[in-house]
């Protein structure tokens, strides 16, 4: 080293430590600064301040921004990096961060305003690697002797450790908050005496039934006014004021959730939180919603109470024992029945109510169940308070805990004394009945044998059994007699051989079996073939025979020979046909007769009329030539002719009622009577006659016949009127049901007109009431009352033609009454 300045010459470097020595040793003559001796006062004093400072300081000086720094700054450059940088150009030393500090230095140099940074991350190379280093630093201007800014003093502290520590703190706080939020319990922190909610985790919000927006940063009692009136407010105040922790279990709180006030049970604690000054500034609430558990327990205890109530009220005796069989509880019924006290019964005390003879067995089996964990079931007697034993069916069931181990036993004793008595009685009855049945069975067997015997011996009926396929399985005497086969000839053969070839071809035997199988039975009458080929008329009943499962297993067949009956029926049928033919012939003859009556009457009246005409001509023209006797005889002849004419007219009318066509029409009774009044005006006038119609009705009748009927009836009344009394005829009509008609042969299922005609004439004796309607019947001599004896027969005939009837009643001298019944609707 050629150049070696003396440290004593440079007091500003004297206290400069290692860096002072390095400055002194550096050959500054080769730099733009020149030798130390030539340095400006300002530089010297600045360096004096820097080098003696215990804080890390750095100086960029001059055009080239030559680097100076003190011992405190040295560690920031690391062990193995930029050091020693004294006297080197700033841009070269800090090449790795020049982009960042270059502009800063320039800014300070130009403006002379200091620039400072806090916890600034600056990555630079030291200790053999690039490290992220945090700095808090200040760049401030350094002036030269002329007062111009000629450098930048960097005062700095490396805050890497502080920053990292702070970071860790923040992370830890973040974790805490996250932990609070994710905690499986409700955690909330309230600030100050107003309890402003600072933190409330999701659990808390769930518990409260509120959203974060509703509670955060608001006083909790404002956000949840339902708490105001509750104990919890006082507790929270007390914790805040006294700093004492409060904790409670299953504490009931009323909370409004979804608009509904609900009772919630919580395990919770309130803890005070202290600030750095040791004062309480916040309160923390930690809680767990245990409502479900509380409610469940309440339910269990309710259900337990229910169980006890039930167990006390069942008709059985019941009890519960520990796993080892020590009975700790009996129901009320037990005490009622035994008359013992709980103290006497507790544990194994129950033995005192057992029958000593059975007790050993009971104990042995009970212990066996306890050891093996098996259900206990046994019937034994238990002594009641009256000292009598009754039979009980005892069942004991193990009750398991969650692990599947027996925790206790539940026992019940059911009084089966009555059942036992009943069963004993039943057994006795069954035995009795069995004995009876055996007897009955025996007699049934005998009866069956008898039945078989009878069937076998029946002569008039073929009775035999067919299997499912129609094969004959047995044969009785009747079968042999009717069909000629002997049992050994036919058993095992198909029954279809009893049928004619035609019936076999059309499958009749199979049809009959099928019908019997499906409907239970089939019947048929028809020709059957005997062994010798001859036919007989048979009535056959085939009945299906079922087994217990309802399946057809065969058929019974009963055949009756109806040949005789058939002959009789055929003969009857023939007779019937013959009768019908005869009847038809009769009807034909009758019709012929009627038409003969009509034609003959008609033809008879022609010559008769002419006889009358000739007679009248002779009487008129030859009056003078006849003697008195002759004239009288002529008059008699004329009367006979008139009588004959009347007879013929009536006969014609009578026969016409049969031959004429029946045209029904509606006519009013009034119009009919009006017409008759006209026709019979003279006769009525002569008798001072009066016809009174009471009911004006319309009837559906054969017009001419109906008119004829009334004409004849009224003529009849006129004819048989009393000479001394004016004639009065009353006619009424009424619609009546068939049931009210007093005529036996008329059907009752329809309605009738009841037309009644009464007169005040001479009447007749009741015994003639039927005879007056008979043809040619007269009650009086011809000289007294003219007439042919046909008029009322015609009336009767007409009533009958209408499907009706007429009857007469009367008393001699009291008038006559005719009752006509005609169906309302045409028959």
């Amino acid at each position: 080293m050629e150049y070696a300045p003396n440290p004593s010459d440079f007091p500003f470097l004297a206290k400069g430590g290692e860096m002072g020595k390095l400055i002194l040793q550096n050959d500054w003559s080769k730099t733009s600064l020149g030798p130390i001796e030539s340095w400006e006062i300002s530089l010297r004093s600045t360096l004096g301040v820097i080098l003696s400072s215990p804080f890390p300081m750095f100086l960029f000086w001059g055009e080239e921004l030559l680097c100076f720094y003190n011992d405190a700054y040295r560690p920031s450059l690391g062990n193995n990096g930029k050091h020693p940088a004294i006297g080197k150009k700033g841009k070269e030393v800090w090449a790795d961060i020049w982009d960042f500090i270059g502009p800063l230095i320039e800014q300070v140099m130009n403006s002379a305003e200091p620039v400072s940074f806090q916890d600034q991350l600056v990555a630079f190379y030291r200790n053999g690697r690039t490290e992220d280093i945090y700095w808090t630093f200040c760049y401030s201007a350094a002036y030269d002797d002329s007062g111009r800014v000629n450098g930048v003093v960097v005062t700095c502290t490396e805050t890497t450790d502080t920053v990292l520590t702070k970071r860790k703190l923040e992370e830890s706080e973040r974790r805490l908050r996250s932990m609070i939020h994710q905690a499986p319990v409700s955690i909330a922190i309230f600030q100050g005496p107003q309890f402003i909610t600072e933190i409330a985790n999701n659990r808390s919000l769930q518990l409260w039934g509120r959203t974060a927006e509703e509670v955060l940063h608001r006083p909790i009692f404002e956000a949840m006014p339902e708490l105001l009136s509750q104990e919890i407010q006082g507790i929270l105040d007390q914790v805040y004021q006294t700093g004492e922790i409060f904790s409670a279990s299953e504490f009931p709180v009323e909370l409004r959730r979804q608009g509904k006030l609900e009772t919630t049970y919580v395990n919770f604690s309130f803890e005070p939180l202290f600030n750095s000054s040791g004062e309480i500034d916040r309160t923390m609430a930690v809680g767990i919603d245990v409502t479900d558990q509380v409610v469940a327990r309440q339910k269990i205890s309710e259900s337990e109470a229910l169980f006890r109530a039930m167990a006390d009220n069942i008709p059985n005796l019941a009890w519960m024992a520990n796993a080892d069989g020590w009975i700790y509880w009996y129901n009320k019924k037990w005490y009622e029945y035994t008359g013992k006290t709980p103290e006497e019964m507790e544990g194994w005390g129950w033995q005192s109510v057992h029958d000593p003879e059975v007790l050993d067995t009971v104990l042995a089996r009970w212990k066996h169940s306890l050891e093996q964990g098996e259900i206990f079931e046994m019937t034994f007697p238990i002594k009641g308070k009256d000292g009598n034993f009754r039979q009980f069916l005892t069942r004991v069931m193990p009750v398991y805990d969650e692990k599947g181990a027996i925790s206790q036993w539940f026992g019940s004793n059911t009084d089966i004394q009555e059942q036992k008595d009943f069963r004993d009685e039943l057994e006795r009855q069954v035995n009795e009945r069995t004995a009876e049945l055996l007897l009955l069975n025996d007699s049934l067997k005998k009866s069956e044998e008898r039945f078989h015997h009878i069937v076998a011996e029946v002569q008039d009926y073929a009775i035999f059994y067919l299997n499912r396929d129609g094969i004959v399985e047995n044969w009785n005497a009747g079968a042999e007699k009717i069909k000629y086969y002997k049992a050994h000839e036919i058993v095992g053969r198909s029954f279809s051989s009893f049928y004619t070839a035609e019936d076999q071809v059309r499958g009749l035997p199979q049809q009959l079996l099928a019908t019997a199988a499906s409907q239970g039975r089939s019947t048929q009458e028809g020709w059957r073939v005997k062994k010798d080929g001859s036919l007989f008329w048979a009535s056959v009943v085939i009945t299906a025979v079922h087994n217990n499962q309802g399946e057809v297993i065969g058929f019974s067949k009963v055949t009756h020979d109806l040949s005789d009956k058939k002959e009789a029926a055929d003969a009857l049928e023939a007779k019937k046909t013959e009768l019908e033919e005869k009847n038809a012939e009769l009807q034909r003859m009758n019709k012929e007769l009627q038409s003969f009556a009509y034609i003959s009457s008609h033809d008879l009246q022609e010559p008769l009329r002419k006889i009358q005409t000739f007679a009248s001509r002779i009487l008129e023209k030859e009056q003078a030539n006849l003697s008195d006797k002759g004239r009288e005889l002529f008059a008699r002849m004329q009367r006979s002719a008139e009588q004959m004419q009347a007879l013929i007219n009536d006969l014609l009318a009578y026969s016409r009622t049969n031959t004429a066509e029946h045209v029904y029409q509606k006519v009013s009774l009034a119009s009919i009577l009006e017409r008759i009044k006209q026709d019979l005006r003279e006769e009525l006038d002569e008798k001072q006659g009066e016809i009174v119609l009471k009911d004006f009705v319309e009837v559906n009748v054969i017009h001419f016949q109906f008119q004829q009927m009334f004409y004849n009836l009224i003529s009849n009344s006129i004819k048989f009127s009393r000479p001394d009394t004016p004639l009065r005829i009353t006619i009424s009509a009424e619609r009546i049901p068939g049931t009210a008609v007093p005529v036996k042969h008329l059907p009752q299922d329809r309605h009738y007109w009841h037309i009644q005609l009464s007169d005040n004439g001479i009447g007749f004796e009741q015994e003639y009431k039927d005879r007056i309607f008979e043809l040619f019947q007269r009650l009086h001599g011809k000289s007294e009352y003219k007439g042919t004896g046909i008029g009322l027969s015609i009336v009767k005939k007409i009533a009958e033609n209408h499907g009706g009837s007429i009857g007469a009643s009367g008393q001699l001298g009291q008038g006559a009454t005719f009752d006509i019944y005609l169906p309302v609707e045409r028959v």
Partner: protein
Amino acid sequence: MTDENFSILLADDDEDDRMFFQDALDELLVSATLHVVNNGLELMGFLEENMHQLPHVIFLDLNMPSKSGAECLAEIKKHEKLNAIPIIIYSTSANPEVMESLYNLGALYYVRKEGDFSNLKSVIGKALSLWQQNSSRQPHRSNFLVLL
């Protein structure tokens, strides 16, 4: 009976009845021309032949061989040139149903052959005067049968 110019046609198969009818007209002093036919066929033949000089009125018996009075009536009433001739039924029978059907066919009156000659005479006379008074107009059915 002053009108000399009217002619009556009687259709009746019975000779006696024809005689009675003639006698009645004579005694009634009806001076009409009477033509007589013996049955329905003759009646229709007569009318066909005398189309230019038809009778003023026909008395028609019902029971006639070969063609009955009722058949003749129906035929005449259907015939456009004959249907105006008034027809008086002249019969022994008085079956109301038959009368009804004849009225419906268009017969003018119904005269029953009375047994007593004086009655017969008066009923024929009454029929003729009814016909003349009412100039062939069919009466109400209740007056169809000419009564004594």
